[in-house]
């Protein structure tokens, strides 16, 4: 509303200036007739001057803001998955999985679920169903990753990750990380 009022004031100031110039400086010639092409050019120029900053830029700014939020969420999810990957590496190196490690891993998977759920909600809200295939693949990899890390004899006294389990974990972790990187690219392209 305030923009509209400012616009009206500016138009009024323009008309007043034009009249003042015509009155005080009569040496300026003013045409009585207006060329149709010039008029159309003027209207188009005014339309673009109003449309681009007010509507288009606002729309672009909103889209960019949405993308930034989604990308931040994806990076957050990657960070939580990295924590799991590091904990598993640490457990393999120490050749033991402490109760603290077990709780941290299980807790991280709860965070992964919630972060992924938020991400899916945001993507569906902004980009509808365009990334369904990619999200389905990420959901499957999350399930597979959790099963690999917390399945088998996980939690058992003296439980250890074997080199083979670690290799399998590493493969799924990198697949998941790659899918999430691709998702960042796809979100930015939309």
């Amino acid at each position, binding site marked *: 509303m305030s923009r509209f009022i400012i616009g009206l004031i500016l138009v009024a100031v323009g008309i007043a200036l034009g009249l003042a110039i015509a009155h005080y400086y009569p040496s300026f010639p003013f045409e009585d007739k207006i060329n149709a092409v010039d008029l159309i050019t003027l209207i188009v120029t005014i339309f673009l001057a109003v449309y681009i900053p007010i509507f288009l830029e606002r729309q672009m700014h909103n889209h960019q803001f949405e993308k930034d939020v989604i990308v931040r969420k994806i990076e957050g999810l990657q960070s939580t998955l990295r924590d799991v990957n590091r904990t598993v590496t640490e457990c393999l190196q120490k050749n033991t999985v402490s109760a603290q490690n077990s*709780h941290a891993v*299980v*807790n991280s998977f709860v965070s992964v679920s919630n972060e992924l*759920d938020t991400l899916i909600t945001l993507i569906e809200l902004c980009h509808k169903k365009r990334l369904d295939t990619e999200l389905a693949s990420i959901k499957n990899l999350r*399930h597979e990753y*959790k099963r690999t890390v917390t399945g088998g004899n996980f939690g*058992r*006294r003296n439980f250890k990750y074997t080199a083979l389990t670690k290799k399998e974990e590493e493969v799924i972790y990198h697949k998941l990380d790659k899918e999430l990187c691709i998702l960042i690219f796809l979100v930015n392209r939309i």
Partner: protein
Amino acid sequence: MDKIIIKISDDYTKTPGVREEIEGDFPGEEFLEKILLPKFQQAIAEKKILYVDFDDTAGYPTSFLEAAFGGLARHYKDAAIVLKHLEFKSDDDPFLISDVKEYINEANNK
């Protein structure tokens, strides 16, 4: 349909543990034998739904879930009958229900 409710954090533990009893505290097998299976049998006998509430715990390792819910499906040798009489609630972990359903469906494929 009426429901029989199990809230794992109140009825069993807030820190679900391992797969088998010999492996450590609060194993999935013990939960299956002492709570899940008797309540499930009661639900079937009384034509009720068994409603399992997963919330308010420290989280569930796959080993616990697979032993408990996969074990239930193995007991009945049929995933469909198990899924038909179960309902779940998990606000803490949005993907836990789909995980559990997958363990039930895969239990008899091994």
